[in-house]
Each structure stands twice: as structure tokens, then as C-alpha cells.
């Protein structure tokens, strides 16, 4: 009996009917739906036990307390510590996203270690001047640099750090010329806590975020700061309860602060945690501006901790013309790595274990550690160790030495975030003190008689030049400087909304943009008499005409000076 085609069709029909009565087709439909939900392009979050660890943020000198929610040992979320006496639970957008930084794709991971060492050693051997430029003085590493430079024949230690601290809690009036007091200045939590006590007068050409919340906004053009200050001096009173901040630096407001009686009260010499006595014979700190031009042969820049970018032209003029050697210790390509001969990679927060110097708005000395939450990659360099080895200093745990020195002084108290308690140092053993520091404790000195800061005269720069005739705009920085590496999530603020100006952008009033033939989002050149830098353009009708607002990328800062005139030209 042969099978026919009809049998085949009947068989197939029976199979189809039978298949529908089995789980198979329904299962395949469900599975396909489930498969389509688990798209390979979607990352899966890590699984594991949730733990809480503490550290202090070292992206800036505020050193805010950080509670890290970790899966296993990997931080997945950073928040503030509410009971912290200084930071009061506040973290800025950079601090909130810093756990991404170790995985940043633009992070420097390799560098020419041997060649850099060879070049520097050779230059030192010939007796040429060696300098360390410390961009965040006051750390234990800073003292290592000072001791290293003292050990070398012709070593000098350079800083550009501010030497003043401000007491907002004692101030009744704060006159700020362009300083973003309420937007990333000092320790944000501390500023907000003190806000109720003082009247804030914000004097600047652009209505910044700080100006929005200030009591008064004075639209003052760059260049008119001194005249305005003189006019207001009488009004501000001379009982030491007023305080003047100036975006050009503490020296610019020094004379006015002195006249107001603020020196020694609301403006004091910057305090520092005690150091072991043996260290005090280290090299003195020299301001970068005081070094003779063209005198430095080897410059070692510690860019791993930055307190404000120093424009390259201020540094370059101090280097010898003939074959200078510049080594920068950095985690990003964007800073001095653009200018240095050698860029050596360092760890980034939260990989580092280092101490954080006292913040600009703390009149009591503080000592706290940024305790590493994850391990740094292989191949990175610790700049303090590198420079110490270069100078032949003995090895040692300098941070432990300093902590022991603080403990021996018996002063102050230490706050521990895990239990929120503050314990006097006198009541702790050295071991317990060190343990508390290792758990992100914060040591705060007892109130001491505040010293008035050294009165330094401002280096005055002429505002107008002959070559300014064709530079129609006046440049103004937007907000506080950003750290060298930014989490990718910062696009939320810079690109996915227009809330903040990205570091590599400039903003123009629509009429100025029209005059320069620029549209929103185009690439352009920001040009001053110091040079030019490629930028992207944002059009902001909220700006006054005649002002170009700048992001704080190092490339832009390299061609900027407060009050400088500029133009923006299409690329």
C-alpha cells in the first residue's frame, strides 16, 4: 500500500492539531517574548550582599563625608553623611557620581615611567633647578614634597594655593564679586548651614545660580569691582562682620577686607593640621609667581589633587627655554598632560588613600582621610612616593606619622560617620585614633585664636590693551571649576538638559551670536590675546549682551584671565 499525498496532508493536519494540544507552541511564543526582553545590549546590575562603607571625598578640599552603598566591595551609590559636622549630608553632583571615575574610558592608565625617571634623574644630577608644583597644598604629600626639595641641592617647592580661610558663620554680610558662594564654593553643606546668618550681595555681570538665591544681585561689569567695593565700603561697616570675596583671588579683596576689619575675624590665615616636628625643616612654600622667570629646569606637577587650575602660561614662563623637563602626575589627558613631556598615571578617587587638607571655609584645622574603596589598577604611580624616592627620602607611612603627631598633641576631637559620635582625642589611644581615621573619621581642631592672614598685594593686570580693539566681548567664567575627570552621567546636566554649561562650551547672547555668525551647538574658537581654544557654542538669552560665559575646561582656562576681552569666531 503506497502512501499518497493525501495521507501526508492528513498526517500534517493531525500533527498540527496535536501540536496545539501540547505545551510546545505556547511555550515557544512565551519563550520568544522572554528572549526579546533580555536584550544582550542591556547590562545586568551586579548581585551580592549590600554593604555600607564610609570615606571622605577627595575631589576637592571640602572633603565631604561619603556613605558608599556597595554591592560586595564595589560602590554603586554615594551619598552624604547627615550627621557630619562639616558637610552635613551634602554631596555635589561630582561627588554623587565619583564611583564611575575608576572606569572612565579616558582615564590615563599607562605612562613612560622609566624614561621620565631617567630624564629627571639626569637633570637633577647636573645641579639644575628642580621644582614641585603642588596644586593642593596642606596634604601630607605636600610635606613630603617639601622635605624632598629640601633634600635636593637645588630644589624648590611651589604652590598656588590660597593662604586664607573664611568664617561664614561669623559673617553678617558677604559681598561676593563673582565667587559662586552657593554653587560649589567651600564645603556646600557648611555654606548652606551658615546661610541664614548673613546677607549675601552677589556682584557679577551674569545672574548666576548664586545670584538667584542671593539677597541682592548687583550687575557689576568685570573691571568695575574695585570701584564698586570702594563705594560699598562705608555701607558694609567696619566691625569685622562683613566679608568680601573676589573671583580674582584673595589678594584682590585683601585691602577691602582689611579696611572692614575682617582680617583675623572672618578672613583668617589658613589653618593646617599639625605635622611632626622633624618635618618642619622642610623647604618653605614659594608662590609660583615669586619664582624668577626662566629658572626651572625640571618641573614636577602633582595634578592628582587640584584646587583650581593654574593657566599654563603662568607656569611656562618659569621654565628654562633650553630643554625643560616637565612631568605631570595625572589621571586625565586634558590638563597639563597636553603640555608636559611625561604624563604619569595616578589613582583616582575613590581608589586613593590620602589625606584631605582643610577646606577654604573652615577656620579650624581638620584632618581626614579619603580611604580607598576599591583597588587602583596596576601601573599607576603614587606621586609622593615617586618624588620621595627621587630625593632619597627614607620610606615610611607618612600619613600614620602625621596622625600620631596629631594624637600626641591631644587637641581636638574626631567624628566617626559609622556611629555619628564625636570623641575627644584625649580620650583615645593612638591606635583607636588611627582606626577611626581609617573609617573615614574627621578630626577637627579645637577653636584657637585665629591669625590674620598675610597681606599680599594683588598682582594687577591691566584690563585693556591696544590689541583689544577687535575683541568685542568680555569673558566671564561660569561657576566653579570641575574636576579633571567627569562621570559620563554629567551629560544629564550638560547635554541632556541645558541646566549647566559644559566645561568645553561657551555661551553667548543671541545678538552676539548673530553678529559672530554662530548658531547654537556649532564648533567655534574662543580667542583672546593669550591664544585660542576650540569650543562648542551655546546660545543663552539670559546672558547680558557683550559677555561670553565660559566653561572651565583647562584649554579655555589657558587663554583666560579675569576680565580679559575675547571674541568667538566660527571654526
Amino acid at each position, binding site marked *: *500500500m503506497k502512501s499518497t499525498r*493525501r*495521507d501526508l496532508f*492528513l*498526517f*500534517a*493536519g*493531525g*500533527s*498540527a*492539531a*496535536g*501540536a496545539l*494540544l*501540547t*505545551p*510546545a507552541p505556547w*511555550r*515557544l511564543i*512565551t*519563550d*520568544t517574548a*522572554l*528572549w526579546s*526582553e*533580555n536584550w544582550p545590549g542591556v547590562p*545586568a*546590575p551586579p548581585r551580592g*550582599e*549590600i554593604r555600607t562603607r564610609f570615606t571622605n571625598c577627595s575631589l576637592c578640599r571640602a572633603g565631604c563625608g561619603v556613605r558608599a552603598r556597595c554591592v560586595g566591595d564595589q560602590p554603586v551609590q554615594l551619598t552624604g553623611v547627615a550627621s557630619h559636622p562639616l558637610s552635613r549630608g551634602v554631596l555635589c553632583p561630582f561627588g554623587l557620581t565619583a564611583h564611575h571615575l575608576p572606569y572612565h574610558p579616558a582615564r590615563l592608565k599607562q605612562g613612560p615611567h622609566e624614561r621620565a625617571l631617567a630624564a629627571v634623574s639626569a637633570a637633577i644630577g647636573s645641579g639644575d633647578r628642580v621644582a614641585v608644583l603642588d596644586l593642593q597644598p596642606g596634604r601630607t604629600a605636600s610635606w613630603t614634597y617639601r622635605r624632598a626639595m629640601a633634600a635636593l641641592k637645588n630644589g624648590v617647592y611651589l604652590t598656588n594655593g590660597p593662604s586664607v580661610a573664611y568664617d561664614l558663620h561669623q559673617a553678617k554680610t558677604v559681598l561676593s564679586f563673582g565667587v559662586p558662594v552657593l554653587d560649589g564654593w567651600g564645603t556646600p553643606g557648611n555654606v548652606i548651614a551658615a546661610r541664614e546668618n548673613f546677607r549675601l550681595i552677589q556682584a557679577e555681570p551674569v545672574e548666576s545660580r548664586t545670584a538667584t538665591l542671593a539677597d541682592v544681585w548687583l550687575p557689576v561689569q568685570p573691571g568695575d569691582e574695585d570701584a564698586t567695593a570702594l563705594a560699598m565700603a562705608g555701607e558694609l561697616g567696619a566691625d569685622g562682620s562683613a566679608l568680601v570675596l573676589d573671583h580674582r583671588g584673595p589678594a584682590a579683596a585683601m585691602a577691602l577686607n582689611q579696611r572692614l576689619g575682617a582680617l583675623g575675624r572672618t578672613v583668617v590665615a589658613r589653618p593646617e593640621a599639625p605635622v611632626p616636628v622633624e618635618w618642619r625643616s622642610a623647604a618653605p612654600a614659594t608662590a609660583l609667581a615669586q619664582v624668577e622667570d626662566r629658572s626651572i629646569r625640571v618641573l614636577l606637577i602633582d595634578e592628582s589633587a587640584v584646587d583650581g587650575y593654574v593657566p599654563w602660561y603662568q607656569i611656562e614662563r618659569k621654565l628654562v627655554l633650553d630643554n625643560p623637563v616637565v612631568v605631570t602626575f595625572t589621571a586625565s589627558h586634558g590638563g597639563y598632560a597636553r603640555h608636559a613631556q611625561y604624563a604619569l598615571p595616578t589613582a583616582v578617587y575613590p581608589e586613593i588613600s590620602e589625606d584631605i587638607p582643610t577646606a577654604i571655609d573652615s577656620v579650624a584645622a581638620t584632618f581626614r582621610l579619603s580611604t580607598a574603596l576599591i583597588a587602583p589598577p596596576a601601573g599607576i604611580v603614587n606621586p609622593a612616593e615617586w618624588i620621595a624616592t627621587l630625593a632619597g627620602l627614607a620610606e615610611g607611612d607618612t600619613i600614620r606619622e602625621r596622625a600620631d603627631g596629631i594624637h600626641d598633641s591631644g587637641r581636638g576631637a574626631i567624628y566617626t560617620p559609622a556611629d555619628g559620635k564625636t570623641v575627644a582625642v584625649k580620650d583615645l589611644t593612638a591606635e583607636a585614633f588611627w582606626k577611626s581615621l581609617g573609617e573615614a573619621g574627621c578630626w577637627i581642631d579645637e577653636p584657637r585664636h585665629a591669625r590674620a592672614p598675610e597681606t599680599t598685594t594683588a598682582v594687577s593686570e591691566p584690563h585693556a590693551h591696544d590689541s583689544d580693539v577687535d575683541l568685542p566681548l568680555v569673558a566671564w567664567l561660569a561657576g566653579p571649576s570641575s574636576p579633571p575627570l567627569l562621570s559620563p552621567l554629567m551629560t544629564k546636566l550638560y547635554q541632556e538638559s541645558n541646566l549647566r554649561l559644559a566645561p568645553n562650551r561657551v555661551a553667548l547672547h543671541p545678538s552676539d551670536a548673530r553678529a559672530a555668525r554662530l548658531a547654537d551647538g556649532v564648533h567655534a574658537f574662543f580667542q583672546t590675546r593669550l591664544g585660542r581654544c576650540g569650543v562648542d557654542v551655546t546660545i543663552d538669552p539670559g546672558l547680558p549682551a557683550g559677555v561670553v560665559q565660559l566653561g572651565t575646561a583647562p584649554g579655555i582656562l589657558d587663554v583666560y584671565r579675569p576680565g580679559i576681552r575675547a571674541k568667538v569666531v566660527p571654526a
Partner: protein
Amino acid sequence: MKHRAKIAFLAGLLTALGAGWAGFPLAIYRSRPQPVDFSHKIHADKAGSKCDDCHAFRADGSFAGIPTLDKCAGCHAAAMGTTVAEKTFIDNYVTPQREPQWAVYARQPENVSFLHSTHVTRGKLKCEACHAAQGSADMPRVYQEDRISGYSRDIWRGKRMTDCVDCHQRQGLEHSCLDCHK
């Protein structure tokens, strides 16, 4: 032949039924062995362990699920018996400090938030209600996963989300999608 048509149809029907019910599970599921032949029975009988000695709640209310290596190594730093399974475990995992990659029968998809504390502590559900009698088994069940979706065969005791929803409905606890999804 007289009933040729019916026979052909019936043949197809029966073949499909057989293939669908018996053959399809063999085809759609792929087995994976557990890294260690763990015996719940021995641990319950000889070691006197109860369920929550190893499968406990943490301080924040989350459930530890399958314990990590340090729990096992707490007792098995050295061999406690004579089985091959234990020796393999110590050699391959305890000594080199490697976490065993257990195949989790009830591993939920990424978008599901199942809270043990609401079901066990508050709802007083017994472990066996969802996890069968694994606690008294001598050998771990064979872990099978769906080839297409990757989900474990026992993920919801072989059924689907609607069975969880039905029980919630009966308890008066079915409010919104976000009750169980994250």
C-alpha cells in the same frame, strides 16, 4: 483501506502529542550540573542544620539565598567526612578561595523584585511551598534551563507569573505591577 484518512490523521495527532509532551521538554531544556554534589539530607541529619542556619535574613531584611563560600568554609575548612563530593569541594573551592557558581533554581529575571521577608516572615509561607522538598533531598535536583529564554525550569515552580498573581489576589494583596517588578 476503509479508515485510511482517520488513521493518517490519528497517526499525526498521536505523533505530535508524543513529541510535544515527551520530546519537547527534552529538546527545550538544557541541563547543567551543580558545581558540587551538595546533600541537604546529610547536613540536616548529621550536622543538625536547620534551613535558616545557612539561608538566613541579613540585617537589612534581604535574604541571603544560597550562602557564600565563607559560610561553608566555616565548617569545611578541613574534611569532615569521607565523601568524594566533599573532597572535590575543598580542593576546588575552599582551598583556592573560589566561590562556587551555583545554578540557582529560583533565580528570578532581572525585572522581578521578590522579597523573602514579606512572604516568609510576614506571610509565614513555608520554604517547601515554593522550593519543593529540596531541604530533605540527598542530591541536588537537576538544574534545567530553557534554551531560548535562559530561565530556570523551576523558576516559578514550572508555571508562570499568573500563579504568583493568583495567590496575591486571594490574599487581597494584588495592587499594581510595581508590587513585584522593579
